[in-house]
């Protein structure tokens, strides 16, 4: 059951100090240059052809979520594989390094597995999501899989629903995008769009869209920790 999202990328930190938790409702990766680019509300689209880098960031965000409302993980990846592309052991190891209780963390991540192509099932799933009273933040993994599932004509509605979800819960959504082309609907609806690429000793983060920062590039040093 190998997942492309499972491995800690080479050169990335394998341990870090007990996580200082961000304020409720804020996402944080524990990487200040990147955390400064995040917003508390709306779609934050992370684009990268390397799924392992994005999943590594998601794991960092998950172990930093304070105990409280769940994280809503919309898992569209590999529809027929359903659950198994989320590598639990990577999450558990990260939780232990962050001095978090892995069991509590796993209880706090609420997973919705891929909607089928059937319209009734999609509507029903949105109804179920709407019944969740509060959410810390949302992870959409991945938006490309959602396009494949839904086809062009449903994308606007679905992206709009994601945006509405963020507005209703007062939170942000991490939208993972591995595709080569930024879809115009996603470009329009996202509050923040960051393009990530592996670079020597770290990652290059290109700001494609931001409500308060100009387009530009940020270098993210990711030195491997000793021991």
């Amino acid at each position, binding site marked *: 059951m190998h997942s492309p999202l499972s491995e800690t990328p080479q050169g990335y930190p394998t341990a870090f100090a007990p996580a200082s938790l961000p304020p409720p409702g804020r996402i944080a990766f524990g990487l200040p240059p990147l955390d400064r680019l995040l917003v508390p509300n709306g779609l934050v689209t992370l684009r990268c052809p390397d799924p392992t880098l994005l999943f590594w960031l998601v794991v960092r965000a998950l172990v930093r979520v304070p105990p409280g409302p*769940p994280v809503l993980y919309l898992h569209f990846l590999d529809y027929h594989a*359903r659950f198994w592309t989320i590598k639990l052991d990577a*999450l558990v190891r990260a939780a232990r390094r962050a001095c978090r209780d892995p*069991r509590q963390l*796993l209880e706090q991540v609420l997973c919705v597995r891929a909607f089928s192509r059937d319209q009734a099932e999609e509507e029903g799933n949105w109804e179920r999501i709407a019944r969740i009273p509060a959410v810390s933040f949302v992870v959409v993994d991945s938006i490309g899989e959602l396009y494949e599932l839904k086809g062009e004509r449903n994308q606007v509605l679905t992206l709009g629903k994601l945006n509405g979800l963020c507005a209703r819960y007062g939170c942000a959504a991490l939208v993972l995008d591995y595709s080569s082309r930024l879809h115009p609907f996603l470009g329009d609806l996202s509050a923040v769009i960051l393009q990530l690429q592996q670079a020597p000793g770290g990652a290059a983060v290109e700001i494609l869209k931001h409500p308060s920062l100009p387009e530009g590039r940020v270098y993210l040093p990711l030195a491997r920790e000793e021991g």
Partner: protein
Amino acid sequence: MWYHLLVEDAQVQLFGKMEGRRITERRPYRPWFYAVPLPGEAERIAWVLEQHPLVAAARLEERKPDLLDPRVAPVVRIETAGVQAFPQAARDARGLEGVRELAETRLPHDFKVAAQLGLQFFQGDEPLSCTLLGPEGPEDPEAEVAVRWSPGGSHRGPAAASPQLPGPLPHQLLLDLQQDLAHDIYPLDYALDSRARILLAAQERLLRLQELSRETGVPPERLPFLTPGALNTFLHIRAAWQQGFLIPDRKRILEEPKSLALLERADKGGLIFYPQPGLYRGVAKCDFSSMYPSLIVRANISPETLGCGCSPGTTVPQTGWEFCSHAGVIPQGVRQVLERRLALKAALRREQDPARRRELDIRQRAFKTILVCAFGYLGYSNFIFSRVECKEAVMLLGRDVLARTKALAEARGLEVLYGITDSVFVQASPQEAEAFCRDATRELGYELVVDAHFPAIVFPRDPAGAGIANMYFGLTSEGEIEARGIALRHSDAPLLTRRFQREGIPLLLANGARPLAENRQQLDSLLEEHQERLRRGLVALEDLVISQRIRRPLQAYTGRAPHVQAFRRAPDPARISRFVFCQNGPLPASQARLQDADIPHYQALLERAHGQLVNALSANVSEQHNRRCPPSFAGP
């Protein structure tokens, strides 16, 4: 006995046979569907639809419109004037205000009418005569079954590749041996190269048809073209009808959001006890008969029984989910098929006559894939009755049963060498194994039988030295090779390597009285012999051919996989790439020549095939593996 029906617009024609004579009946048929109304709207909707020009009748009924709700509710049954009127009537009903949803608009008419008339196909022992469909039509116009098979036709080729033949007569059931999906499931073990064999194949297909049509209610003419999954669906539709449920057009059972903690506990596959690599002597393979279907029936696993609470039932380990004991739709459907299959298997075990054994085997195998689908479809979201928690529950209960089986074996002093999902390999004499299976069956409530005895069996190792699930090879006490996961079992391995392993395994394992090192030497000599023949070009080109299926559209392949490269040069309508590794790259088998073959590549394949057989053997195999093997069990 009815064997065939034809649906016309507002009637159905039935064909049967009684006391050797053909009988025909015409009965009226008014295609129907249901409208499930919003609360308080039933009477109005019935009245409105009654006025519709294409509707013959609209009346209120009390049915269960929701699979997860056992209560009946008023629904409107709409009967249309005929099959032609049906689509428009359904469209208009769907758009009517007050209609929540429609039901049963997507079911085929022949299936519905068979259910409505209570038709039981192939009841009784009237034999059906088969005839070939020739260029002028059926050779025997009086025969009940017309068999279509084009000369030079292939099981794998589309019918369009062969000349068009005329259809059967109205009273004749068509058996198209080319389009029949059963050939994918149960490939024939003989070529259809004579009239007699074609008719024999038809008679054998009829056995399958009879069994499946009786149990699922699917009319015989539709059945050959249905996948096992579709048959599974029809089986459970019939079970749902028997319990008063409507079949909705759209699935309404959804998975609740689950925490990762619950998913981690619940979403597990079958239990595996990994083997210690090595050679073992005196091993019994014990299998549960139809374990997952039996679990479904015994634990009453069905979407509507989960969390029902109406009665105490089964609690699923790890999750605390509870299934009530009120008979569910899925167990009801599975039970009838399972009981029929187990009865046929029991008769097969008792039968001595080869012809009768073959017939019983064909009949029982007809149900194997339906029973597999009965489990798999529980988690398939396009199955109208699926609920993924049911599938997870079956696997969790299966894990529990296997774990208890291991504990029972060990309590008796039997070592469990390997276990996977529904079978365990124990080091035991045949008598010990039989006694263990009897006691385990009684204790656990699921039938455990000895499937095979191995005087010698090898579990290969992976590169890290660990045991591998689903990989072993051995010789049974009948001298047959049984293997999993090695080249011998790979359809994409060339004949060269498969033949090597087929010849090599008996050399390695057959003579248990001889030191293993000597047997190993014989195997090494065999390898050298095969390598020499390969080097000298003393092999047939066919021995080097590798066959792989092209499963996706060609444009979806972005790499340079050898089978795709070869296929692009010589596409085959059957989408099978048959190719040979040559010095300049992979070539289609039709274009390759022996002198161009990449001999080092095939030598490496032979080495790998040899390695699979010996990698678990050490130079000094410990006799501890023999400690429970009685002298009489040293080998075939």
